[in-house]
């Protein structure tokens, strides 16, 4: 077995995974805080106000990254579900649980910021628009996956069930999305005005910065949740005992 494959497979061992997460965490934390500060400064001070919407458009810099991330997390979850279902990787099931919670959170964030943005610009909190409806359905699918993890006491079976559900959802999501678009075009004129032209560069680069910052914050949160989960599951394992003994002898963390 080559060194590369050994390195890849070691991600599946809880002890090795924990070591790597601990090493990775400070770098991700520093990078995400830096990007978040830079992105927020660019978004809330440097970017010019919109000529139609004024200052209120700046909620875009929270709304759009959250919405992108809510879809991206589902993509990651499909990959994890394949790992759980086909190769039966236990660690991937733990990650799937953490990702489902985070995905539900970012979807909720996108919906709430969208509603706050909609009130002054469209004059209403909620429209039965295609994108809004499919985002709402996505939230319910995330919550269903979270509930499956909570409902079953056997965590391995719960992970496999959630993986099957994730895969079923992944093939159904396009259908739901296009059916909602069809419905929307049938029944009501488009109410999203959006941007008449594509974003100007002075408004676009803060958005990309914020999207990167959100992605890094998500990775940071996922690392935290996965670390806690590994410790929870490893209460009686030798590698944790060795690690704790090493900490006591050296008198320091890490």
């Amino acid at each position: 077995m080559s060194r590369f494959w050994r390195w890849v497979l070691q991600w599946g061992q809880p002890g090795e995974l924990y070591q790597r997460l601990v090493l990775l965490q400070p770098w991700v934390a520093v990078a995400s805080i830096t990007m978040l500060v830079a992105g927020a400064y660019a978004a809330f001070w440097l970017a010019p106000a919109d000529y139609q919407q004024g200052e209120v458009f700046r909620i875009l810099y929270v709304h759009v990254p959250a919405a992108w991330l809510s879809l991206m997390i589902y993509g990651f979850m499909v990959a994890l579900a394949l790992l759980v279902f086909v190769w039966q990787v236990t660690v991937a099931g733990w990650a799937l649980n953490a990702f489902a919670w985070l995905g539900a959170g970012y979807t909720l964030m996108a919906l709430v910021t969208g509603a706050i943005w909609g009130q002054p610009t469209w004059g209403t909190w909620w429209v039965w628009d295609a994108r809004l409806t499919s985002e709402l359905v996505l939230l319910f699918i995330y919550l269903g996956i979270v509930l499956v993890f909570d409902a079953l006491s056997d965590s391995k079976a719960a992970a496999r069930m959630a993986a099957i559900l994730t895969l079923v959802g992944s093939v159904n999501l396009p259908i739901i999305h296009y059916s909602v678009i069809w419905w929307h075009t049938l029944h009501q004129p488009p109410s999203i005005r959006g941007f008449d032209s594509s974003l100007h560069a002075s408004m676009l680069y803060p958005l990309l910065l914020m999207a990167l910052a959100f992605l890094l914050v998500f990775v940071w949160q996922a690392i935290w949740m996965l670390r806690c989960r590994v410790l929870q599951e490893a209460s009686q394992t030798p590698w944790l005992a060795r690690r704790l003994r090493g900490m006591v002898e050296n008198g320091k963390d890490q």
Partner: protein
Amino acid sequence: MPYLYELFWEVRWQWRLLMAQPKALLNPLLFFCLITLLFPLALGHAPDLLRQAAPGLIWVGLTLSVFLILPNLFMPDLQDGTLRLWVACRRPLSVYVLAKWVTHWAFFVLPLILIAPLLGVSLYLDLSQSWLMMTLLGFGSFAMVGIGTIGVAVMQKGHYNPFLLAVLILPFYVPILIFGAGSLQPSSESMAFANGLLFLAGLVIFTLFLAPWAATQMLKLTVAQS
């Protein structure tokens, strides 16, 4: 072909099991009638409003009835051990899922669709639309039961959680409701019916491929931990 042969015998067997207790049909039938007749009482007797809302109300009533039928699919078999034998023996479990799906749809849901036009009359629905409505309801409810098999297969120790079932399967009913009720709206064009029917028929075929596989995997896990 042996698969279809086995499926045929299993459908026959499940149908006989259902026919042993024909009175069980009354439960969903009464529920569907009552839940649909609650709407005129709650909305007031405004014919125009009811006529506008009638397709949607019938679809919601049918969805709720299907939702209450679903626990009947696997629960009794899990409790008396039949399901355990099915998982243990070498016959494909998807035969069992498909047979349950087809027979329960034909036994419990088809009568509901047959009386739907009657309920439509009470909601001032145009009777000339009955055939269209029944066709759409038929395809839609068949897909609904199929998607439902995935959700009800998630059980813990022989118990299922109705709230969990709702969160698991209702999001996947969104396209069915949109196309089923949308094509019946009085304001929609004539093309809408054909589009809705084609979409629902496609969804049925899609569910025929997806649901037996997913429900089989779920049932294996459910049986293993019960």
